């Protein structure tokens, strides 16, 4: 299979009610990623954007952003999900041999309309949507409680995930929620949304945009002397809420297995130097530890208790602060991908030493129904 590398990236600051239009935000990161990759618009063969009509409040949310995303008279498409899926589609277009250089750009300005309200529209309208208590947060709360009852994890473990990520975010200039000396108690006492989930355990919707430039192995080294190679990709989608095991992230396990197989990873805990996980809710990071085979089932709580996923730990997870430090919905997964690239290039603010293999994860859908995993490495 044709190898693909990430040769450039750009991220905007995650903020609320940004003093810029959607068009300016996309233009800023698209131009920034090209500059970072050392490519001109002429070098780009294809552009894949990521945004959704419900979040942007515009049917065909990409049609007025063609100029800003650099897609004018380019082979273009829009992934209507997380930005990491746009990066996946861009990689597939390169692997097919039809294209050599691709730009993937993603954005969401949550100020436009509350993303939590949009999640109500993701429910099956003939039955679930009739119950107006259901939305992403209350369903995630049910998922959290189910996971906790099986694994023995309690609210404190969830709070420890928040403390780790919110403290990590202090070093990340782009993070939205930074709490240098947040404590477990503070997390537990923050406003209760739907037990056990309090405000700090829920990723805060905000405005953000991100972009990456990908290139095939034939041209990557032309543009960039230290390309970050995509060594494995895994992607899977679970069944709908009512007929799936809510207490596990099965589709993440399937996705991780496939990514590990292509990347030649047998023991993820030992071989992966850092992981950037899209934890839309605190408990989902613990569930991800298990689905990513960093530990056995139910042992997620041990990893967080022992501090093994701290940036100095054996298996650092989310040195960037993760989604709990800022969730620009469609950009969140792509930002995880970029943070993983930064770790490999040694450009991360919260750098893990000797980082040669990184994992980036994106989730989509209610209770992380869909999951996507990238394995990145510093050599082909």
């Amino acid at each position, binding site marked *: 299979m044709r190898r693909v590398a990430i040769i450039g990236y750009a991220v905007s600051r995650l903020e609320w009610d940004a003093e810029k*239009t*959607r068009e*300016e935000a996309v233009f800023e990161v698209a131009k920034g990623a090209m500059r970072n990759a050392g490519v001109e618009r002429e070098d780009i063969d294809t552009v894949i954007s990521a945004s959704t009509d419900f979040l942007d409040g515009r049917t065909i949310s990409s049609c007025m952003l063609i100029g800003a995303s650099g897609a004018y008279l380019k082979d273009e498409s829009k992934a209507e999900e997380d930005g990491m899926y746009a990066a996946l589609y861009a990689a597939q277009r390169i692997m097919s041999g039809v294209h050599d250089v691709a730009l993937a750009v993603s954005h969401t300005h949550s100020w*436009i*309309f509350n993303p939590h309200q949009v999640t109500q529209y993701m429910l099956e309208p003939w039955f679930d949507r009739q119950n107006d208590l259901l939305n992403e947060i209350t369903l995630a709360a049910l998922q959290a409680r189910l996971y906790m009852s099986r694994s023995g994890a309690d609210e404190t473990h969830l709070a420890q995930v928040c403390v780790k990520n919110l403290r990590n975010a202090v070093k990340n200039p782009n993070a939205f929620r930074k709490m240098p000396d947040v404590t477990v108690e503070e997390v537990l006492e923050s406003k209760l949304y739907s037990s056990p989930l309090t405000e700090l355990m829920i990723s805060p919707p905000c405005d953000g945009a991100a972009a990456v430039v990908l290139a095939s192995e034939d041209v990557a080294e032309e543009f960039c002397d230290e390309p970050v190679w995509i060594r494995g990709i895994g992607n899977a989608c679970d069944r709908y809420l009512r007929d799936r095991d809510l207490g596990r992230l099965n589709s993440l396990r399937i996705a991780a297995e496939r990514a590990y197989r292509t990347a030649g990873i047998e023991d993820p805990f030992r071989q992966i130097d850092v992981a950037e996980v899209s934890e839309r809710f605190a408990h989902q990071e613990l569930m991800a530890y298990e689905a990513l085979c960093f530990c056995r089932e139910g042992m997620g709580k041990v990893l967080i208790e022992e501090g093994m996923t701290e940036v100095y730990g054996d298996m650092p997870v989310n040195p960037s602060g993760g989604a709990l430090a800022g969730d620009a919905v469609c950009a969140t997964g792509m930002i995880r991908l970029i943070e993983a690239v930064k770790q490999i290039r040694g450009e991360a603010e919260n750098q893990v030493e000797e980082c040669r293999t990184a994992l980036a994860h994106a989730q989509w859908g209610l209770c992380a129904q869909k999951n996507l995993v990238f394995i990145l490495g510093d050599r082909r």
Partner: protein
Amino acid sequence: MGLIKEKFDRTMEVEGEWSVGAYRWKAPKGYLDEYVRNFKDRKITGTLCSSCGRVYVPPREICARCFTETAEKVEVSQYGEVLAFLVSPPLEKGKVVIAGIDAVQAGFLKEGEQIILAIVRFEGTASSLVLPLVNIEPEKVRVGMKVKAVWAEECRGRLADLIGVEPAFEVKYE
């Protein structure tokens, strides 16, 4: 025999809504707000892309072709050319309903009136605008005819100040 449309049974429906009006957006300052402000002095302005020389009307912040921000605001000519046009039949009640309001009933459009929609390019610009063509009978409208802007009596810096275009001068080719 005429049109055949297969009928399908109707099953129970459940209802729901999507408050599209509750969304909020942002426009760049200094573009459309300035464009209509200049209408107060009956001026049409656009933005010039210094890289390709195109003038966008209404003003545009980013030039797609050059992938750069447009540099300057410029005033453009009020004379233009009809590139294409549409002609409505004489309007009747019940034919044009917008947001639940019958436009003719409510008096926004006059009964029996024929609206001509011309797509006009003002001289020196790289954009075309859809504007009503007034002061002319529908049969006389020609592609390529010269037109000029028509302004409301009292222009207060609103989009509605630019009423449309009217025939400018007739060039007779012998």
